[in-house]
């Protein structure tokens, strides 16, 4: 760059700093945010405030119907629990894989990352159907248990919460691993040596050094997996079948099948609010661990 050009650029930067109205710069992003995020949200709230399916009058009836019905409240609780259980399983798997990653050489790390990213290239539908083959009564799990003599009759994990959690954990695992491994990869290996040299056991090093330093990645992973698994309509419906009912399924039924948009809006907002609540708690816990 010539001196004149760099002077020009410095001048431009100075002018930018000096001119108070900076909003034109953020306007494009702001408009997108308002148009595609805030406006639909407002529309959702407006829809939910209608009393009847035909949306002829305003009233709290849709909200009352959801909050007053034990069935729907249980669906809400089940959805959040499903998210938490999936998070717990991906957390354990994620940390275990993270420890392997820490010990791996650079080439092995690249290979590991490739293996983790590979499933993301496959559609969720395909991965979910693969789990049907694995979990069904003619599937790998059942046949293996039979062959090992662990059970006397074929069994199916389909339409069970356990089966759903296992498949969701596998499907959502990359969302845990990507932020976690990027944070773990930046831990100075000398810290682990320092801990060992000072006499700490492997467990102590894990709890006192590795996990606290991985906290940002763990929090991000938990948030992503929780938000994604509570909203995993396809996996929930296909693996859960008609027997396990979660909020995304209710939203789909109400909006597409019975055309009760106000009620669908209420369920959507409740899902949004409760997921945000849990995310807030996870975030707060993550900060506590770090401090």
């Amino acid at each position, binding site marked *: 760059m010539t001196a004149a050009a760099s002077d020009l650029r410095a001048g431009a930067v100075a002018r930018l700093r000096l001119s108070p109205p900076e909003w034109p710069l953020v306007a494009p992003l702001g408009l997108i945010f308002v148009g595609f995020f805030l406006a639909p949200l407002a529309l959702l709230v407006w829809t939910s405030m209608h009393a009847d399916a035909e949306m002829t009058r305003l009233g709290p009836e849709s909200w009352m119907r959801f909050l007053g019905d034990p069935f729907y409240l249980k669906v809400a609780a089940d959805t959040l629990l499903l998210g938490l259980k999936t998070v717990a399983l991906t957390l354990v798997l994620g940390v275990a894989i993270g420890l392997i990653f820490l010990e791996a050489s650079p080439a092995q790390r690249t290979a590991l990352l490739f293996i983790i990213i590979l499933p993301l290239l496959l559609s969720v539908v395909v991965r979910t159907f693969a789990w049907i083959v694995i979990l069904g009564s003619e599937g790998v799990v059942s046949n293996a248990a039979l062959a090992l003599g662990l059970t006397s009759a074929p069994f199916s994990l389909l339409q069970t919460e356990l089966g759903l959690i296992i498949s969701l954990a596998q499907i959502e695992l990359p969302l845990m691993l990507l932020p976690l491994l990027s944070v773990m990869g930046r831990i*100075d290996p*000398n*810290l682990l*040596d*320092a*801990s*060992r*040299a*000072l*006499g*700490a*056991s492997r467990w*102590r090093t894990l709890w*006192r*050094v590795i996990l*606290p*330093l991985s906290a940002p990645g763990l929090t991000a992973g938990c948030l992503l997996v929780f938000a994604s698994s509570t909203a995993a309509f396809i996996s929930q419906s296909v693996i859960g079948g008609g027997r396990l009912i979660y909020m995304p399924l209710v939203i789909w039924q109400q909006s597409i099948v019975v055309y009760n948009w106000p009620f669908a809006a209420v369920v959507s907002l409740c899902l949004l609010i409760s997921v945000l609540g849990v995310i807030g708690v996870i975030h707060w816990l993550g900060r506590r661990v*770090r401090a």
Partner: protein
Amino acid sequence: MADGGAVTEAGATHGVSLEVDAVSHEFGAYRALDDVSLRVEPGEVMALLGPSGCGKTTLLRVIAGFLAQSRGAVSVGGVRVDRLPPGRRNIGIVFQNYALFPHLTAAQNVGYGLAARGAARAEIARRTRQFLEVVRMEAYAERLPRELSGGQQQRIALARALCVSPGVLLLDEPFAALDKNLRLDMQIEIKRLQRRFGLTAILVTHDQEEAMSVADRVAVMRGGRIEQLGPPADVYDRPETLFVNNFIGSTNLLPGAVAADGSVRLAAGATVAPPRPAPAGARVVVSVRPEDVTLHDAPAPDRFPARCRLSLPLGAVTVLDLEAEGGAAVKVVRLRSAEGPTLDGPLWCGVREGARVSMFAEDS
């Protein structure tokens, strides 16, 4: 302390001996350590000196137990430690980048080793305070490492290593990341702590002045081997190989040949006495330190002519860059106050009487 040195009331420990016996280490096909043997006496400081990549860190990591050597043995206090994990070798280590735990305060860093060994809370607090005082950091106990300067971080790293009373302290390039003034302060600090605790220490460095000022003995390494091991003055005055000669301090290498009468005839045009007898006709390189070159304004058989190209005043001394006949450069260091010929005219260089001159075969 079951596995530490004996602790006296002042927190002082007694260093123990460290022995490295015929250790070799290979990374794949690459031999990073080749039959290295050394013994550090209790309370002694040894410097491992050598260019980057010669295996200093590898040797330190083998001693500390982070790497299992391919062959050979490591003993601490006369006990083989090859099969012991790093935490049970009675060895403390200060890493080149300090490796302080970034999420723990200075005090928690210092107390980490005691906590890991299951010491009682009160004991941890007491010794942490004591060692923060030892390194004069008690005012910074609650700071996080990122809130400390480089020198302060190093003091905490030292306190953390010393807090578990190791018998041997390993320091990997402890001064490399510090600026020049701080470097001298920390050299004094480390020497002070080492004396106070009677520590056995190995200090890795690629800076020969650092090695000379802090160490009792110096091991010069090259390509995974120890080239020469001895007190700093010996290594400086009597380098055994050309590599050691060049690596330790700056020097003038003057090519020449041994004459029939046993004297050395320098290519630059002077006849000097060899430091040791050599066969007539042998081609040699004579090494003369810059401070051992004398300047004169008249020729003599033991002087060679030269011309001054440049004079650099460096505080108390002046460094002169001379050009001998044939273009060879000769470096001379002389006191600024020293009397001598004017530098503008023709000069003749000689070798100071009693100077340590080294001579090597030309092809070594």
